[in-house]
Structures are given as C-alpha cells and as structure tokens.
C-alpha cells in the first residue's frame, strides 16, 4: 500500500510547537510542491488546523525519511533538535496510517469528540491537494473511502449528537423556542467574546436584527458596525427589552443588570410572546427570579456548561460504536488494496512465466538438429513447455491468494519480488 502519515497534534505537541508547523491554506500548495520536489512521484495531502498538522503520503517511506519530513514541516526551523522532534511528531504507515486517517475524518481524534468541523477541513485539504495535482490513484480513493466512513459514523452513531459549545447551545435553545430566526431581534448586552461568538452563530442561522448595548458605547458601536447591528445606549436597556426575542448578556458588572421586574414588564408588553435569555456573565447579569416568569426561558453559564458536559458524555458513549464502523471501513480499504496488489503480482507472475517459456522455446526450436521437425511436433513441444511452467507456478499462485485472505500479502509480495526480480525489471522498464 505504501501509505503514510506524519504529523503533530494537540495530543503530542504544545501550541508553540504546533504553530511552527501550522500552514495557512494559501501556503499549502507551495509546501506540497517543496515536498514533491524532494520526493518525486509521491502523492501528498496536507491537513493543517489549529489542533493538528498532518501530511498524508503515498510513495514515500515515512519511517525512513521522517527526519527530512519533520524539517520540511517545521519550515527548516533549527530551534528543534532531532530527538525533540521525535517526541512531538507521530509517524504511521500502511494500515496504521489509514486507520488514523479514518479516525481523524470521523472526528474520533478531535479535541471535542464528534465535532464535525474537522471533516470539512480534511475535505478542503484534499481539494487543495487535488487542484495542485498532488493526489493520484492511491490517496484519492483512500480519502473518498474515509469520507464515506465518516458519513456513516456521523449518521449511524450519536457521536455528533448534542451541541457542546456555549455559542452552539445558545443557537440550539433559540431554535427550540423560535421557528424562524430571521424575523427575530437579538439583543447583546456587553460586548464580550463569548457573546460575540454566540451572536455570530445566531446570525449564521438567519438572525438579522441585532441590538448591541455596552457600557462603553464606542465599543458597542464597533461591535454593531462589525456585525451589521444597531448600537443602543446602555441606559435604554429596559426600553428596548420588550423588542428583544433573544437576549445574550455578558457584562463584567458586579451586580444584576436585568431585573425580574423589567423582564415582567417586557413580557407583558410582548403579550406573552416567548423570550429567550442567555446569561453568560459571572457574576450573573440576569436576575434568577426572571426564570419564574411565564414564557421567559433563562439559562446561565452553569446551565450551558452542564448540558455541554452531558452531551460530551453521550458522545463518548458512542465512541465504541463509531470505532466499529471505522474498523469496518479499514477492512474494506485493506481488502480493496490487497485485491489490487494481488492482481498486480499475479499478472507479473503470468508475464514472467510466459517470457521464460517463450525465450526457452525460441532457443530450443532454433537448433539445427530440430530444423526438420514437422509443425505438429513443434506445437506439441510448445504446449508441453507452457504446461510445465504453468504447473510450476500454480502452487505459488495459490499461496499468494491464501496470503491475501490472511492479510499477509505485503510480506509475500516482498519475497516474490525479491525471488523473481520483479522490482529490478520494473526499474529497468
């Protein structure tokens, strides 16, 4: 199969090492060209995210050439010694590399198990490599099968079930209260980073009308400009509260910012229309008593983190089932490649037998003392020679087929190549 992977990830390297090896999407084609220049004829795919940088190869002996590849991936940084690199990088070959590929694409190796973003990132990496002409008959079908396996893992197990980040949970709650986010007004109180992320997630789902309230009006205006919302003076919060369908609060105020009485007035003005309030501030901004008001749904950071933890637990429970699917995918890939390898070696076997037989016949039948031999007798000799060769090769052919079924084909192919000199012939051709 001659497939390999060499890389670093959050499992093996701290961020200061990972950022040395990180490659921006725009730089990937030139990086691949550099590697191809050192390893002509190889196939390459480079996956680089904030959590991992991995180079998938075909046609390179990653174990033998790992130090050269380490240096290329670290862009020749002399700061790291060879033994240091050894501890940060992992190297896997053949089925080990394929298994790693499947687990990464299926998000089993992700920092948050089941976070399906990685599948999109791997697809993007394969797309870039395809465009740069770096993939071929080995990596292309391999990645297609990896995507198929990932799709099965995502659809047949609970590994992606339940959101696990604060921003995605805010969206999930919003979608359980409201049908169409594009007609809803989102109010952001305090321009914190998490609130901004939650707002972005809501906007991705269609929310358009955004009100931003911040103690520093200038900062609120900046965020409003950035996200296409409206900045409102902070002291007008209660006046605007009734207009907001979704409120996300994240100020650093040491006291309550939104009181239950204000929420009660807002919900009366809304005539019972539901209101979702997400409080991600510590200490809390929204009066906990507001949760008792009918048609108001209040969630604090603790609620969100508790749900996230439960969802992570559920995902972990699905991991075993996901690995079964990955192993099935691995077995299919192995079978596919081994059957391809078997066909190839049997073809070489037949070709070799034919060549040996024909050259021996030519030499024998050209001898003077056989010149008078009638054509039927010559044909009988040819037939006899072919039968002897076929008989001699029959047992080794069967042994190869058995080895393929037992998963030992790679070893047998190596021996056969050595014994019959197939590699030497290929290189001469």
């Amino acid at each position, binding site marked *: 199969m001659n497939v390999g992977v060499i890389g670093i990830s959050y499992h093996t390297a701290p961020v200061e090492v990972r950022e040395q090896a990180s490659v921006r999407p725009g730089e990937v084609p030139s990086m691949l060209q550099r590697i191809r220049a050192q390893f002509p004829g190889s196939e390459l795919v480079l996956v680089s995210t904030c959590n991992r940088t991995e180079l998938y190869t075909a046609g390179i002996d990653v174990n033998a050439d790992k130090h050269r590849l380490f240096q290329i991936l670290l862009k020749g940084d002399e700061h790291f010694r060879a033994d240091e690199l050894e501890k940060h990088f992992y190297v896997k070959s053949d089925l080990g590399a394929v298994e790693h590929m499947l687990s990464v694409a299926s998000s089993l190796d992700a920092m948050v198990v089941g976070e399906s973003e990685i599948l999109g990132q791997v697809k993007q990496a394969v797309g870039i490599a395809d465009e740069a002409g770096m993939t071929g008959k080995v990596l292309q079908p391999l990645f297609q099968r990896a995507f198929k396996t990932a799709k099965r893992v995502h659809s047949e197990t609970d590994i992606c079930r339940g959101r696990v980040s604060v921003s995605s949970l805010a969206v999930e709650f919003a979608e359980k209260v409201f*049908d169409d986010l594009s007609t809803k007004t989102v109010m952001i109180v305090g321009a914190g980073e998490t609130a901004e992320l939650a707002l972005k997630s809501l906007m991705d789902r269609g929310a358009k009308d955004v009100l931003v309230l911040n103690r520093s009006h200038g900062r609120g205006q900046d965020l409003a400009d950035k996200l296409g919302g409206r900045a409102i003076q902070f002291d007008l919060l209660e006046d605007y509260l009734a207009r907001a369908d979704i409120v996300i609060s994240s100020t650093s105020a040491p006291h309550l910012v939104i009181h239950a009485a204000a929420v009660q007035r807002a919900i009366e003005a809304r*005539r*019972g229309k539901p209101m979702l309030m997400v409080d991600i501030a510590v200490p809390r901004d929204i009066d906990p008593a507001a949760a008792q008001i*009918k048609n108001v749904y209040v969630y604090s950071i603790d609620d969100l983190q508790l*749900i996230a933890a439960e969802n992570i637990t559920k995902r972990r429970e699905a991991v075993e089932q996901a690995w079964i699917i990955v192993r099935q995918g691995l077995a299919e890939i192995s079978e596919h490649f081994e059957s391809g390898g078997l066909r190839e070696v049997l073809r070489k076997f037949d070709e070799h037998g034919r060549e040996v037989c024909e050259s021996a016949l030519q030499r024998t039948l050209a001898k003077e003392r056989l010149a008078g031999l009638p054509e039927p007798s010559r044909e009988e000799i040819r037939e006899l020679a072919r039968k002897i060769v076929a008989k001699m090769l029959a047992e080794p052919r069967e042994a190869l087929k058995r080895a393929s079924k037992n998963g030992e084909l790679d070893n047998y192919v190596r021996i056969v190549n050595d014994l019959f000199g197939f590699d030497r012939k290929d290189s001469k051709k």
Partner: protein
Amino acid sequence: MDREFIVSIFGVGCYVVASLLAMASLLGYRPKGERAAITLMIFGAVILAGVLVLRGAGFTAIPGFNRFDAMTLYALALSGAYGIWSVYRYTRGIAGILIPYATLLLLCGISAFKQEAGAPAQLQGAVMMLHVATAYAAFGVFTLASISAVIYLMQDSNLKNKRFGVVWERLPSLESLDHIMSRLVGVAFLLLTVSIVIGFMLVCELGGGDEWVRDPKVVATAILWILLAVFVHLRASSDRHGRGIALVAVFGLGCLLFAFMGVHLVAPSLHAFIQMGLGAGGP
C-alpha cells in the same frame, strides 16, 4: 358485513403500527420512522373511509350515529387535518402524540362495529350530511390545534425545567406550535359555526322548539363554540401568545370530548339517536 369488519380491523391495525412507529420516532428509537408512520396512517385512513362509505350504502343512511362510525369519523377528521397540515407545513414530532390519540379513538369504536344506528328518516339528506361533515371536520381540526397545545406545554415544561432529553430534541419549536394553534383554531371556529347554523336549520325543518336549546349536547357544543370564539378573539384582537393560550386550547379539548361523548353519560339528550353506547343516550 364480516368482510367489512375484517377490512376495518386491517385499517385499525395500520393505525396501531403507525402509532408504534411514531412513538418510537418521538422517543428516539427510530428517528426516521415518523414519515413512515404518517404514510401508514394515511393508508389506514383510506381503508376506514372506504368502510364507512360501504356501511352508509349498506344501512342506506348517513354513517356517524353509532360509536364505531362516530369514533372513526372523528379519527379520520383528525388524520385528514394533520395530513393536509403536513402537506402545507410538515412539523416534526406531532405524529408521536396525534397518531396514538387517533388509534385510541378507533380502538374505542371497533367493538360497536355491528351496532346499527341512524338519524330519524326525516333528517336523512344532504343538509344532515353537511351538518355531520362540518361538525366532525371542526372536531378534527380543533383536536389538532389542542394536541399542538399539549405539545407546547410539554416543550415549555422541558425548557423551564431544563430537561433536554430525546423528546425535547424531537418536538418542534414553541413558535411552530403557537402558529399551528392560532391558524387551526380559527378554521375550527368557522367550521363549528357552519355546523351549528345547519343544525338550527334542521331543527326548524323538524319543527322543534325550546327543548333543542336546552338539549345537553347543544349546550355543551355552544360552550365549546364560545371557548373557540374567546380563543380567536385572544389571538386576532389581543395578539396573545404563549402558555396561557395553550392552556385555553387544552381546556377546549376537554370541552370537545364532553360535547362529543361525555354528555351521553350525564343526561338524556334529543341527540339520543346517536348511540355511543356510553350511558343515558345510548342503548
């Protein structure tokens, strides 16, 4: 008759299987089973509608006056309302409660299959048929709205009490359910108004008097009509939403069931020709 009974059992069987599928889907055991459940329910509904048509032809009278006919017509009206709503705007999760409810109605009716009952001969006709059809259509449409209200209250309770299980995940958003309630209660109110007006026309045709106004079934239906009018007012004029309005719709379902069946248990009625086999009005 026996053949019709076997076909009816088959139709009810379709509903039973559809119920199991829909509930399994709601509880997350068969997430993609809901559409199959709806298809099976429609198949069962077509079979049962055929049985009712044949029974009407067999009795040479409008079906709808014994327990089997009444329950089947109610279940079919509910299934039809849901089928039409699903074509207009499919809302996931409702089938898990609606189909078992319709199945329960059918199971309540099946034992009265062989009972013969009909309206007085002088009432048989197109006007009576229209009265029955609009009444059942109103019941079906309003029940769908009430089931949405029940689901609204379940989802409200899940969100308030932070129970985020499979059922929470499978049920639709509060806003979708609120939308179904507001749209369908208006339609049910219109249909029930038409049915009541036709009912009065029939009473006039019979030469009936005040005894009809005091008839328990008429009074119970009038209460339901007033409740629907209040609901329509709360939405159309006051633009009320949320839990309160859902509670009104659920209370309305209680009134509907009383007007439809319960009234036969408590007092003799001029509608006694409807033989529900439940009490004072029945055999």
